[in-house]
């Protein structure tokens, strides 16, 4: 930009520089071209500051994580965006809800697509969160120091299930009505508080307008708020627990020479009234910078590109599914006649199959035991070995028990899906 006339008015110059100055006031750094600027990305950008400046190479291996945790998060983001859009047209009323579903199909621009995306993302989130849980277990990543983050993760899995359950009631079709009926009845089997819980959930003694409103509030306000908070804690703990888990041999031991050169802050014996510097807070006895072999790479661009890739794959998959398959909508509610057989979505069919043997054991007892076992896993399985490797031989017993539970549930889901016909009688699908 070289104006032809040399004398410039200061005002004109200010005006000419205005776009540049606005831009620089928002983005304080240029696109990184050296390591210093690459470090600055995580320090100066609000959206990137959750990331470490450098990330371990092992954490970037696609076959270690399969990006499942990120996918869960991105699906949650898609669900929030599509969910908020759907809220513009939805009314939680027993007389209007179903018509609004038909409106979404018939008159609302992109209505069908948005509902499809919301539905398939929800199904996807249940599946991916579960696979993520499997990944973390089968790589032994719940072990010390990540015990608490595993607990948060299990809670997130349960919240995901509650979200999906409260969600599929909202269209107020046959599935919705009978799912609330059965779901709240299962809650009623819980010891001591069961009947009160059932009454609170239904807002009365039978399933109707009050129940729909309650599940709507849970679905669009209460549960998303809790879920968001728990996700924040989950992410924060990843950083504080030292990044993703990795095997011991991912970092070669520092040589003796390096150990001698290392500075050991005298923080190991806590004295009263001592003023601690930041080094006293750093875990481990040595200042490691420059002393140990470095197996990390800069997050910019390595981690960020991987995340972008995962996001694009996730969104594309949901878009393709939503363009190909329409979200089902059953008949409008008929409180007099349940469909026969009345089946829950696939991920609850294992539960439904179990409930068909015993309401208490199938709906309350066994799931509670399973959840308690999951929560307690890192506190029962204290062996330090086998962290950071899929199906490690050191963890044969724990992995076998876990896989047995998973396979049992999958078998129940398959029986519920394919082998149950009218009146929940056993049928063969062929």
């Amino acid at each position: 930009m070289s104006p032809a006339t040399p004398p410039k008015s200061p005002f004109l110059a200010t005006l000419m520089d205005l776009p540049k100055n606005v831009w620089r006031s928002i983005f304080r750094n240029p696109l990184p071209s050296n390591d210093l600027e690459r470090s600055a990305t995580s320090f100066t950008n609000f959206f990137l500051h959750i990331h470490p400046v450098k990330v371990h190479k092992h954490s970037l291996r696609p076959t270690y994580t399969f990006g499942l945790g990120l996918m869960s998060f991105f699906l949650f983001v898609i669900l929030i965006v599509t969910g908020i859009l759907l809220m513009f047209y939805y009314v939680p009323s027993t007389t209007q809800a179903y018509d609004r579903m038909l409106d979404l199909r018939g008159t609302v621009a992109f209505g069908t697509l948005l509902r499809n995306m919301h539905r398939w993302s929800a199904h996807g989130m249940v599946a991916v969160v579960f696979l993520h849980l499997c990944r973390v277990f089968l790589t032994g990543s719940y072990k010390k120091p990540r015990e608490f983050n595993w607990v948060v993760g299990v809670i997130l899995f349960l919240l995901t299930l509650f979200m999906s359950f409260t969600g599929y009631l909202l269209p107020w079709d046959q599935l919705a009505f009978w799912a609330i009926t059965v779901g709240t009845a299962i809650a009623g089997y819980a010891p001591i508080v069961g009947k009160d819980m059932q009454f609170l959930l239904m807002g009365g003694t039978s399933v109707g307008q009050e129940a729909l409103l309650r599940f709507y509030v849970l679905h669009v306000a209460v549960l998303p708020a809790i879920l968001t908070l728990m996700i924040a804690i989950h992410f924060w703990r990843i950083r504080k627990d030292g990044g993703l888990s990795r095997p011991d041999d991912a970092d070669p031991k520092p040589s003796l020479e390096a150990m001698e050169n290392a500075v050991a802050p005298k923080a190991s014996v806590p004295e009263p009234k001592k003023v601690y510097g930041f080094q006293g807070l750093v875990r481990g006895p040595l200042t490691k910078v420059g002393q140990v072999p470095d197996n990390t790479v800069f997050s910019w661009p390595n981690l960020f590109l991987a995340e972008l890739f995962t996001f694009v794959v996730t969104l594309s998959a949901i878009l393709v599914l939503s363009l190909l398959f329409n979200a089902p909508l059953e008949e409008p509610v008929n409180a007099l006649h349940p469909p026969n057989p009345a089946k829950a979505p696939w991920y609850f069919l294992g539960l439904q199959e179990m409930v068909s043997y015993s309401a208490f054991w199938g709906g309350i007892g066994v799931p509670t035991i399973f959840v308690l076992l999951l929560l307690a896993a890192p506190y029962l399985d204290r062996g330090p070995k086998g962290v950071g490797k899929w199906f490690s031989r050191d963890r044969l017993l724990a992995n076998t028990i876990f896989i047995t539970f998973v396979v049992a549930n999958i078998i129940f889901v398959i029986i519920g899906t394919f082998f149950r016909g009218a009146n929940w009688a056993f049928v063969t699908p062929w």
Partner: protein
Amino acid sequence: MAVNLKRSSGGDSDKGKTSRRRMLGWLTGAGLVGSAGLSAVSNFVFIRPRATYGQPQRFSVGKPEDYPSGTRAVLASRGICIIREGARLAAISTTCTHLGCTVGAADTGFACPCHGSRFDQDGNVTGGPAPRPLPWFQVTLAPNGEIEVDKDIEITPGSYLTL
């Protein structure tokens, strides 16, 4: 933190002072935790409805002549099945005792489409996960000659209203 420092440096002369401070600390903590607990409980008090809206539990289902002998009429909107055998009449619930689905009439009695509970003609469990037989409701003949069913009053299965 401050309390700890004080305690570690303080001697016996400070004992009374420290324990008073500790007690105040305890009281403050108990007050805060108690308030939080009460707030949480009051939320549940708030969302627990005091009045509920629903169908009346006591209703008329028509004249005895509407149900000739041998009738097994499911009144879906009322959630009951009226049985008439000769001069005897009864009302059996059609709400499954398992998880609250509506059972349908089957050849052998009642069958539930949700989890496969099966009941015989009198509502006794013959299969599936149902923990209890289908309840029987009190049936009376009102002065105007109509049959009145009260779903709030369960009676012993097998006890009929004799017309």
